[in-house]
């Protein structure tokens, strides 16, 4: 199969969906002239015009607010956040408007919109341009949070998010954009929102991850398999509300659970996954649950510190090994 980059995969998703449905438009900072910081919007203005591919002022509350308003009256906006870190600027619009409008208004409204939010560590971008903030939204009913871990899912998940009638936050890891992978040439490539994927089956331990950390999870799994462990790896894909069933089923089989994400471990999504298992499958557990995530500090600038901050493959390997000691 042909290989394309993660960035190109999202671009294809945008193109195909915008061709299919002319209520879709995209807006954000600096997307027209240079195609987005990660090339993820390259060429879109040529195909759809600057009426549907819109450069905005540096006004995140207006970007998200306007997307909500447009969605309310029947459009399907895609709003780009530039960096996920800036979602604090429009947090009120996201949680008090976007997530609640349908419910508050007793189902009168639909808010079919997607917020695209590039997140994660990238080359010493430091404390305000490196965050993974998905956990903020886990406690907020009314929105959904998804994130792909590879180019094929990037495409299928973005398409599904755009087609969804619910408001969706689509986190896309900055370091993944340039990575390549096989992506089927299928206009109906859709990733189910709400479903986790068992990417690798195994019987001794379940590793749950998502986004860029899936690569380290799989790397660790390979090392562990070579050591004789049979490892099951789950890609959550939808982070909120997440697919409890798939995780529980796996843990009931493997009796061991490790969760890994790039976000800070404490208060991270791993806590929610661990808690669900501790509530609903405690008796199946043969070892303490292990969570792996970044250290509890803002993201430091210096490469040395950034490296110390970042979760690593060997953390996963050692974690699993420890479960069998």
């Amino acid at each position, binding site marked *: 199969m042909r290989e394309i980059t993660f960035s190109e995969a999202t671009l294809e998703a945008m193109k195909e969906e915008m061709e299919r449905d002319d209520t879709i*438009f995209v807006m954000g900072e600096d997307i027209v002239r240079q195609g987005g910081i990660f090339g993820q919007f390259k060429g879109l203005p040529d195909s759809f015009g600057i*009426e*549907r591919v819109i450069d*905005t*002022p540096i*006004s*995140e*509350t*207006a970007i*998200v*607010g*306007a*997307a*909500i*308003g*447009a*969605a*309310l*009256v*029947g*459009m399907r*906006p895609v709003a780009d956040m530039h960096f996920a870190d800036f979602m604090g600027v429009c947090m*009120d*619009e996201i949680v*008090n*408007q976007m997530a609640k*409008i*349908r*419910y*508050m*208004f*007793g*189902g*009168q*409204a*639909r808010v079919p919109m997607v917020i695209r939010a590039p997140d994660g560590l990238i080359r010493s971008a430091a404390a305000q341009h490196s965050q993974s903030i998905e956990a903020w939204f886990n406690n907020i*009913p*009314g929105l*959904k949070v998804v994130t792909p871990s590879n180019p094929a899912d990037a495409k299928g998940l973005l398409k599904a998010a755009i087609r*969804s*009638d*619910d408001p969706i936050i689509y986190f896309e890891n900055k370091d993944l954009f340039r990575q390549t992978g096989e992506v089927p040439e299928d206009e109906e490539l859709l990733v189910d*929102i*709400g479903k986790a994927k068992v990417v690798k089956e195994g019987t001794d331990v379940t590793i749950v991850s998502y986004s860029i950390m899936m690569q380290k999870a799989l790397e660790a799994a390979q090392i562990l398999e070579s050591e004789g462990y049979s490892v099951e790896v789950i890609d959550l894909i939808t982070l909120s509300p997440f697919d409890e069933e798939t995780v529980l089923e796996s843990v009931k089989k493997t009796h061991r659970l490790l969760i890994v994400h790039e976000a800070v471990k404490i208060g991270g999504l791993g806590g929610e996954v661990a808690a669900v298992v501790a509530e609903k499958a405690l008796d199946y557990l043969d070892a303490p649950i292990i969570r792996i995530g970044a250290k509890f500090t803002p993201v430091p600038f210096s490469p040395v510190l950034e490296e110390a901050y970042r979760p690593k493959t060997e953390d996963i390997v050692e974690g699993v090994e420890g479960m069998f000691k």
Partner: protein
Amino acid sequence: MSKELYIQFYRTMYKIRIFEKRIEEFSLKAEIPGFVHLYIGEEAIATGVCANLTHADYIQSTHRGHGHTIAKGAQVDRMMAELFGKSTGYCKGKGGSMHIADFSVGMLGANGVVGGGYTLAAGAALAEKIRKTNNVSVVFFGDGASNRGTFHEALNMAAVWKLPVVFICENNEWASTTPYLDVTSVQDISVRAVSYSIPGVIVDGNDVMKVYEESGKAIERARKGEGPSIVEMKTYRIKGHYVGDPEMYRTKEEVEKRFDANDPIKRFKDKIISEGVLSENDFKEIQEKVINEIDEAVQFALDSPYPEVEELYNDLYID
């Protein structure tokens, strides 16, 4: 000016007034739960502005949203039911006063977040611009709300893109317990239009005809694709900020003086009578009908059931 329009204006303003009075009563008795902000004394604004709109046009309202909702054409019975938290309400009892909405008439919602509506209104306007309709979007906001950052972001965006959206400031001189000049760096909010290279005008907000005409011009301008405006309606908040407000920050006399001199409904009635368009008897007839309608709305609300507990999980996600 047609007689029909006069009657419509009077009826709408009076309906808002009576609606609010009944709400106040039930809210004071705690039979209506939650925070309730009354529109009494500001009726001319919603009435005059919305008279320029069709149901294909949109409004974004505020925490003080009953008047806007009525003026935009919503039914008072379903509104009343909503405020009582009943299942027959517009939001099935999930919203209440601060989240009243009627999408069927283009009323896109009250908002509990002060200044939350600007950007949404700009977005609705953006949609209409992309779709090349000539519908417009109107956002109401208070003097207090004019100091939110969203004001600036929405106005700049709307101006740059020439969106069909009109910003209606309801300057009632108070932001909760605070006189607006204590916290606002301009006397006239509409002056801020300069920051966006758009028109800004000041209107006597208690003169429904002036409100109608001046907002009409701004709405027409937006409809023609010439972009946004700020129209500032000067008015005064007659009631406490919310029902139950002890109002320790001002005297009763102060308020009464302002109201006596400037009740928009009384002013309009006097004007029509002096012009000989309608008689006292005509007014009585209108009033009785309105009172009847509101009474029926109250009865409807009282008779309606509360939502079933199972309703809790509905209306959250579609997919």
